[in-house]
């Protein structure tokens, strides 16, 4: 960080630059927020219809019993992965460059989990009984079935949501305190409460640093576990195309891949709008791009392994499932996925592309699309192809209820995100300062 930051980036500069992002929002901001809320409104209307008439309004068919909603669920859970990776794992590895981007990634994580968590509730047939999935003491003495991967899922997502929220809030404390000191009006009250009495004393800093370290250590396994568990929703089933041992690492890599891609997608406009070019530099983007390249290649490898195992395993149903994927009626979805996720990121081998913000932005959007299709391909195509019971295979056509609620989920996510970046520092003030050269007093300088 230090070596790439222009020398004018000082402690003071950082505080001012970041505090400026919290200033009075302009018309553009409200327009974006209104768009997000409108999208959310569309989703809510669709959901009300779904509740009133039933899941039949969505495009499901027999045997495609999971479709766009579960696709969105896995997509959003995947998005949520880069946050903890950047804040916890890279923290433990002492990667200095994370400081400029981790807050955005963490916020994204929390909101993505909030979004993802809605889908299992939306997609079940009797949404009003969702709480039956939760183990709570009841007079019937009934517990959920702990053998069901869906229950594991619930715990994995629940834990992840808790930890990532705590992580986000904890990281915010010193920054909120800093903003509190300059804020006025209702915001001052808000920050006064959320700063939890932070005064920046030595003792507080010592406890804080220790606490942050432990939390990071605790959160690290989650990065790997959550999406592994999500992948077991599929891998534990006997559906060809789902039932594969590679699913856990494959899903984790994919999740980080999509998460990092969305971080890039979000950071580019934030950097531009909030004029944070000095804090979030091309160097940061390049590092994110490298992470993308790495996980993208793991994902590409996983695709190869899937097809290879299908062929090499010699299981007729498995082979039929993958044949259907590549050449069935949804071939376009499969090839979109492969091109966006496995081929496009190979461009990142070139430094000129890695360091071109525009190219990165475009590639990251394609990766997001590709990753959404990856889940669609895995979920819908494996079911629609129905390799065992040939007579039962069927096609699938999503309806307005699918697209509407999916759009609503984007509205929901961006609403929270927009509210967050205007009300809380989107870049960590304190941690960016950590990697800056200390304010120069005399010639002494410790880097």
């Amino acid at each position, binding site marked *: 960080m230090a070596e790439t930051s222009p020398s004018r980036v000082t402690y003071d500069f950082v505080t001012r630059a970041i505090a400026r992002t919290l200033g009075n929002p302009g018309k553009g901001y409200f327009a974006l927020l209104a768009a997000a809320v409108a999208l959310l409104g569309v989703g809510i209307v669709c959901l009300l219809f779904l509740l009133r008439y039933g899941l039949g309004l969505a495009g499901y068919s027999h045997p495609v019993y999971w479709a766009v909603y579960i696709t969105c669920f896995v997509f959003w859970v995947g998005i949520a992965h880069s946050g903890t990776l950047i804040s916890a794992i890279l923290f433990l590895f002492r990667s200095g460059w994370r400081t400029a981007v981790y807050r955005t990634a963490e916020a994204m994580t929390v909101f993505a989990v909030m979004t993802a968590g809605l889908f299992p509730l939306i997609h079940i047939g009797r949404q*009003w009984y969702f709480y039956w999935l939760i183990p709570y003491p009841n007079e019937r003495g009934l517990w959920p079935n702990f053998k069901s991967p869906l229950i594991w899922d619930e715990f994995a997502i629940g834990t992840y949501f808790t930890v990532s929220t705590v992580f986000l809030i904890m990281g915010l404390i010193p920054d909120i305190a800093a903003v509190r000191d300059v804020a006025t009006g209702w915001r001052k009250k808000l920050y006064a409460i959320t700063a939890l009495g932070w005064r920046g004393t030595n003792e507080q800093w010592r406890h804080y640093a220790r606490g942050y370290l432990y939390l990071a250590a605790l959160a690290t396994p989650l990065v790997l576990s959550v999406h592994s568990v999500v992948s077991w929703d599929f891998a534990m089933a006997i559906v060809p195309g789902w039932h594969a041992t590679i699913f856990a690492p494959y899903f984790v890599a994919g999740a980080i891949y999509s998460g990092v891609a969305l971080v890039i997608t979000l950071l580019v406009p934030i950097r531009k709008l909030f004029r944070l070019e000095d804090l979030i530099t091309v160097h940061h983007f390049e590092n994110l791009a490298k992470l993308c390249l790495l996980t993208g290649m793991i994902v590409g490898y996983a695709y190869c392994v899937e097809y290879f195992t299908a062929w090499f395993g010699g299981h007729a149903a498995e082979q039929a499932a993958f044949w259907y994927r590549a050449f069935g009626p949804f071939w376009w979805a499969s090839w979109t996925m492969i091109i966006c996720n496995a081929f496009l990121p190979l461009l990142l081998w070139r430094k000129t592309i890695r360091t071109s913000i525009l190219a990165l932005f475009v590639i990251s959007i394609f990766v997001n699309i590709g990753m959404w299709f990856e889940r669609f391909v895995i979920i819908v195509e494996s079911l629609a192809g129905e390799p065992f019971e040939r007579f039962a295979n069927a096609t699938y056509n999503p309806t307005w209820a699918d697209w509407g609620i999916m759009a609503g989920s984007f509205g929901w996510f961006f609403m929270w995100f927009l509210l967050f970046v205007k009300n809380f520092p989107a870049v960590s003030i304190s941690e960016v300062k950590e990697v800056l050269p200390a304010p120069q007093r005399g010639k002494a300088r410790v880097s």
Partner: protein
Amino acid sequence: MDRRRFLTVLGATGGAAAAASACDIHPEPTEHLVPYTVPPENQVPGIATYYATTCRECAAGCGLHAKVREGRVVKLEGNPESPINQGRLCSRGQAGLQGLYNPDRVTDPMARGPNGEWQKLSWEDAIGRLQAKVKEARGKGIAFVTGLESGAFGELVDAWMKELGGRHVTYEPFAFEALREGNRLAFGTPAIPWYDFANARYIVSFGADFMETWLSPVGYQNGFTRAHAFEGGRDGSMAKFVSVAPRLSLTGMSADEWIAAKPGTEFMLALAMAQVILAERLAPTPADARGLERLLPAPQQVATLVGMEARDIRRLSREFAASKGGLAVAGGVATHYGSGAHVLAASVNLLNYVAGQVGKTVKFGPNHALEAAGSFKQLTDLVGDMSAGKVAVLLVHGANPAHSLPAAFSQALGRVGYRVSFSSYLDETAAASDLVLPDLHPLEQWNDSRPRTGVYALQQPVMQPVFPNARHSGDVLLQASGRASSFREYLQVRWRVLHQRYGRGREFADFWSDAVQHGGVYSDAPVQTVRLVPGIAQQLGGLAGTGGVSEKHVLIVFPSIALHDGRGANKPWLQELPDPVSKITWHGWVEVHPETAAKSQLANGDMLLLTSPYGAVRAPVWITPGVRPDVLAVPSGQGHKAYGRYAKDRSFNAFEVLSDQPTDFGGRAFAVGVTVRTTGDHRRLATVEGDAREQGRDIIEVLPLAKARELKRGAHPFAEEETPAYARKALEGWAEAQHEKASLGNYAGEHPRWAMAIDLAKCTGCSACVTACYAENNLATVGEELVTRRRQMSWLRIERYYTGGGGGGHPVGALVTPMLCQQCGNAPCEPVCPVYAAYHTPDGLNGQVYNRCVGTRYCANNCPYKVRYFNWYNYAEQGGEWESWPDPLNMLLNPDVTVREKGVMEKCTFCVQRIRGAQNRARLEDRNVQDGDITPACAQACPSEAIVFGDLHDKTSRVAALAHDPRGYHVLAGLNTQPAITYLAKVVHGAVAEA
């Protein structure tokens, strides 16, 4: 969805959600049940009463047992005492219930008002009008058109018409005129004999769809299976069945050999076969037929015309004769051509005769009731008179000629002075009437019929009329004709004659109540000898070499299995029943051979305009290898312009392209030359079929006969290792733990393992089981739109896979299998359910607790058999868009089975209500459940007796024995699901074609 609904939903759900929480969206509130204050005698709530009666859905006259609960019929089952159907019942028969409770029934007598609107009348007024009009019309022409009535009602109509100087025309759209004419030609009698399929050893069907609509489909299918099924120990089982027809019908799908002879040349094949048998002296030919071979064509003379090899004709003839139990039948599409159809019937008679089978497998004497049906010519004569203004009053009962003869009859109807309909529904004919006098449903009325000579079937009212202001047409006629008695008394007078013959010295009252209880009087009619009409061979032989349909595209209209001539079209069970061949529901289609389709670049669902000289229809293409390339085939039954909500404006009326002139034998031509034009339109077929090929998944196993015969006890040709050795140890512990868990809920102290065996050598794919399941388990019908999205709820489906036809030189054939929940011992659906809605019952069922289900649908994803079905909507919501049982259709719901709510998964339960019922009865009687106490609805209906149910742990049970049959296998055994259903491999003559 209109604006109003949009706003309502937004307001209602949004408001509720905003006001409280999502918890406010509740299931429907429970209605209060009011108990009987004075309980009726002989009526124990919760205990069903069974009444014997007779099915009137077609002319076969099968015996029924009507299951009545708390005064309502809730299910129709076959009467095991009936010699017609042996306790079995087809889909159409079972769906009679939906005619009874049909929401579109006419509830009151009605007449056209001055502006053409319907006005309700009192019965006095209505009958008064009828009397007045009839009186007025005396001498100016009165005609009464009825369906086939072989009993008291028909006699009453006859008598009344005689009194009035009118005429009585019985009209059945498919009236087998060719068969009757062929019998008259060959044997001098227009009678339709009884065909003894059960004792046949070699069956050749020339188009006869004897499992579908031909004469007595349930009984014939039952007999066919007895002959054709494979029974390891029984010598001479496994008769061979050859189907000669231009399309592969349901009947043809069971054939060991399908010969798609050129349409119109089938009779040459029959004659050539007779020639070979005579020339080679293969059979004990009766003396009067010996030496006829010189009059008949030799195989090489006709082979090219027929489109087969001469040596194949010889082979068939030799096999036919050598079987010493040959049976050739003619009918269906092969007797539907405009000319020469009766020639085929006569030729087939000749074949049976020279083979010495007439009197053995073809029995004149116990003749079929259809011999009494009128001919198409009688109807067209009437239509001619109507057009000429010679009919002043036309009365119609049990027939809908305005649908089956659309243009001509409707036009002629306009020239009739006064039109009276006795229909229970506003069908096309009733809708064009001046007066509608709604009849009671056959399940609500007294009547009788004579399905065949010697069998007198009684119909009794099995419940109070659903619509109390409908009235038995018999009573109406008696009143209108000035007779004092009720129809029941009229009927009894007739039965006094039978009492004298069959009473065996009992009082009439005893005889009567005995007949009512057993559904009629059953006796065997003696077999009569018939002799070949001299000169017939010469006459038929002279025709060989001519004939054959010459048009480029022949369109064949075949009777729909479910809808028949269209009478089934307003019954949602029948509309939603996938056609056993095409698997299409709710609409018609045109069958096109893949080659023809490729030539014209047609795809499934492309709309074709089929134009004949008489009319045109637009039909969606269904490409199938089961039809000749030069033939197009469409089913009858759809395209109603009236009749009710399920039938109206649905697809096309195939009768519109047919000639309205009778053929030379007085019948109707159901084949017509057409020009075909693509319209550019397309529709999604409402089909339930995914892949038409099995792709080597071994869902249906097939054995060649020779191999099947060699199988010894304990052989396992299909054994697949269900548990690999390395996993067995781990699984043992798992199974034990499962068992321990299961015993926690064990209340009986014993663990049966309910299981099923399905013999694919018997299953024909007729789909009677499917309708039985709908009836027994309150399955929702979802309608055409939802079927196109594969949302049908059919717990039991019949899968039909085509075989052969590609490379490898195998001929085209089809395999069928019922697919239902396999009640796996190691079920993939159970562990994935997060709330234990899917769980293992102590007696080995995969239970599904509807109340507990939240609808994650994980179980359905994980089910490799795809037999779990989800309630996408609330199909029981009154007035809802997807309502499945509009009032009073909901009265047919089985009170023993929950109607499932929106958002829950459902599936086959092995009719758990019947299992518990039998267990409760056994408990009350302090005994164990015996093998055979429990019969699931599917097994009960199956005309082929292909399904056996029982306890696998009871080593003496039939199912336990069948589970160890060497032909037995489990579908997808490699998945280690350990299903409770054992399929017994199909056995075929000849080689096995790859799917």
